[in-house]
């Protein structure tokens, strides 16, 4: 049974936009991630999920709008805030020449809250080879190592950007088991297009399509919303529609609206 999330948002964006030339990667985005929630930011490839995350972590700057993360403006996020954020991403470029042990040793002094016993526990649980070079690890093993690094300092916010992509079912389970182990202590923002997997653990959902937010809310609110979407779209009602069904229905609705506005 998941703990009831608190209302205070740990991440909040206001009219957040990011454009590259004439292309709008993110458009007027307003999302709110409640403290203690597992917020799944979902969308097809190219929907703008990674761009949003990079803005939230001050890796790139927004073109317009603002975002606050752990109470700080994203543009002003520095070491103090980053010390409370764990991050795992599919494309994360790790120091490939370092050995796993050396990487942990390198990171420990960076985080004041690093918990050595927790590190040992997670490393044991994920069966990380201590003396292998990071460059020699498989993709799944690298993701697990990155997750172990992200969890060992008990982050207030755990950001996972497409962590399940390219992993086999066993690795997925191990990874999900790894971060859900600490879900009671942290807020998790996970971006994914793996709808079936995310459905298993998300408490809140945000649907992104072409940089625009189609829906955000709790999983319960999503079910309510789904009903109206199904009715609008004239689809057959399903007793317990899956995230995939709902997302597809919302996508169709969004495309229909876009087509109509183009014709007008």
């Amino acid at each position: 049974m998941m703990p009831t999330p608190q209302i205070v948002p740990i991440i909040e964006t206001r009219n957040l936009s990011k454009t590259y030339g004439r292309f709008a990667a993110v458009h007027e985005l307003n999302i709110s991630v409640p403290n203690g929630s597992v917020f799944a930011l979902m969308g097809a490839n190219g929907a703008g999920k990674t761009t949003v995350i990079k803005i939230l972590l001050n890796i790139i700057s927004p073109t317009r709008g603002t975002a606050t993360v752990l109470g700080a403006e994203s543009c002003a996020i520095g070491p103090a805030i980053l010390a409370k954020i764990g991050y795992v991403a599919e494309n994360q470029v790790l120091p490939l020449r370092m050995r796993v042990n050396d990487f942990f040793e390198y990171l420990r002094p960076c985080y004041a809250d690093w918990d050595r016993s927790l590190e040992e526990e997670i490393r044991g649980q994920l069966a990380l080879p201590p003396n292998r070079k990071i460059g020699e690890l498989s993709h799944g093993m690298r993701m697990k190592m990155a997750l172990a690094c992200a969890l060992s300092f008990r982050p207030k916010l755990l950001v996972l950007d497409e962590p399940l992509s390219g992993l086999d079912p066993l690795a997925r389970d191990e990874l999900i088991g790894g971060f859900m182990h600490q879900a009671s202590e942290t807020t998790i923002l996970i971006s994914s297009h793996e709808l079936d997997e995310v459905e298993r653990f998300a408490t809140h959902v945000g649907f992104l399509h072409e940089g625009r937010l189609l829906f955000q809310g709790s999983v319960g609110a999503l079910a309510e919303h789904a009903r109206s979407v199904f009715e609008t779209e004239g689809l057959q009602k399903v007793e317990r529609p899956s995230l995939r069904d709902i997302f597809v229905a919302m996508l169709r609705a969004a495309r229909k609206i876009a087509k109509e506005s183009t014709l007008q």
Partner: protein
Amino acid sequence: MVALVVAIQLGYECAALNSGLLEQKTGAEALLRPLMLAWFIGIAALSAAVVQQDAVPGVDQDWLIRPLNRTDLLLAKLIFLALTISGPMFILNLAHALAMGMPFASSLAAVLSKELFIFTCFIIPVAALASTTRNLTELIILGAALVVIFAVSLSLSAFLAGPEWCPTCHTGMSWLQHLLQHVGTLLGAIVILCTQYYWRRSAVARGLAMLGAASLVFMQIPWSAAFAIERWLSEPSGDASAIALELGEEAPSLNTTSAGSLAARQTTQLLLRGNVDQAFENLHRRARREDMVVMIDLPVHTMGMSAAEMLLVDRLHIQLSSEDGRLLYRGPDAGPSAGLLAADPADATGSAHQTIEIPGDVYRKASATPTRLQMDYWLTLVKVRAEHKIAALGELRSPDIGLCVTGRDGNIIALHCNSIKQAPFCYSAALYASDGRHNPEIFKCDPDYRRHWPPFIDVFNFFGLELPLRDPYGVAHYAIDPSELGTSYVLLKIYGERDHFKRTLTVAELQLERLRENPR
């Protein structure tokens, strides 16, 4: 990689130590150049690798999401480079200097300034460029682009401004321009590093680097400003107040020659001396003059100088105007003869010849009418500040000039000196017999008024002369016979700058067509 760079440094120092000051040890000598090149490539590659370990461009690097203070990260990298490049280099250079018998205090000062210079003017700029790229390939491409921009700017500048593109180049004040360029490079590098580490704007940083490459060419110190700074720095001695220039009694002469042949001859001479940029500039300058060039030879008499003094021409500006004051021609230089006005201090008459150049079209327009010629001289008075006696086949150690070695090399006596301090820019030497007879005095003056400028590659400054001993063709006969070398000595005179000043010499009435032709 650190070990490799240190090994190259060690190899270089060993080769330098073994190459010998006078007698050439070709094996060690041959190694110096490739080792020096390898050393430069090595420290550049190490600097780049250290910076690119945590590449700044891109959005997926792990370090971006770590709680790292950017200042700490940048300082950590610079300290690492200082410890791994400057540290070993400092130890090796100091050991080399002490092994050569140089005084500890002078060696320490020279080595420290050299390491600081290389760190600030090479390692930091390379690190700055590396911070705008992800890997060595990108860095090489950016470096090549910067070289192209620099070369194009240089050509453009020479094309647009002619010889005035660099007013201080090839003068004793060029160090001011170099200082400006080095300070500019360092400041540019700091700006790029800050742009990258604090704002992560790689496109802006690359743009700044390209702008900087062009600025190195176009940002020039005007001559008058450079001269004023030099004058302010040199604390005038007042010795120059008595010096005056006047036109000698000998009649001026002229020589007409085609611009093309003159350009070819001068350019060839410059190329043979290895002054490629000056040769390019000369060729361009002459090529623009469509027809002949008229060279006027004027006798100039210098007064108020003692036998121990010499007068260097830093710059000569000529202005030819008509009788009614209309400007006919203004030229920034006097051709190849500008340099030493009173070359021989022993010449009590103080007479010298000054050659000036006037374009053929100006000559044709002005030759029939009386003209007024004004020559503005920017001069430097140098005076003997030290004299050293060295056995004709021996050596001398002195805190002033370092280690000097003399030896016979066929028909000459070679004098080679190796100083931990700045080498003198003006000096002369002559071979003396014990009874005072002496062979001709040989002068070498290459004006360079810098106060202190650390050597970039070698911690030592080399200088020397070749003194005639015997004419193999039997035309010249010298006072000292080679058999007397055992009791002979070389008298080395070191000149130091005394005053920088300006004088104007005016020829009130000069009718060009009446000058006698003096074919060369």
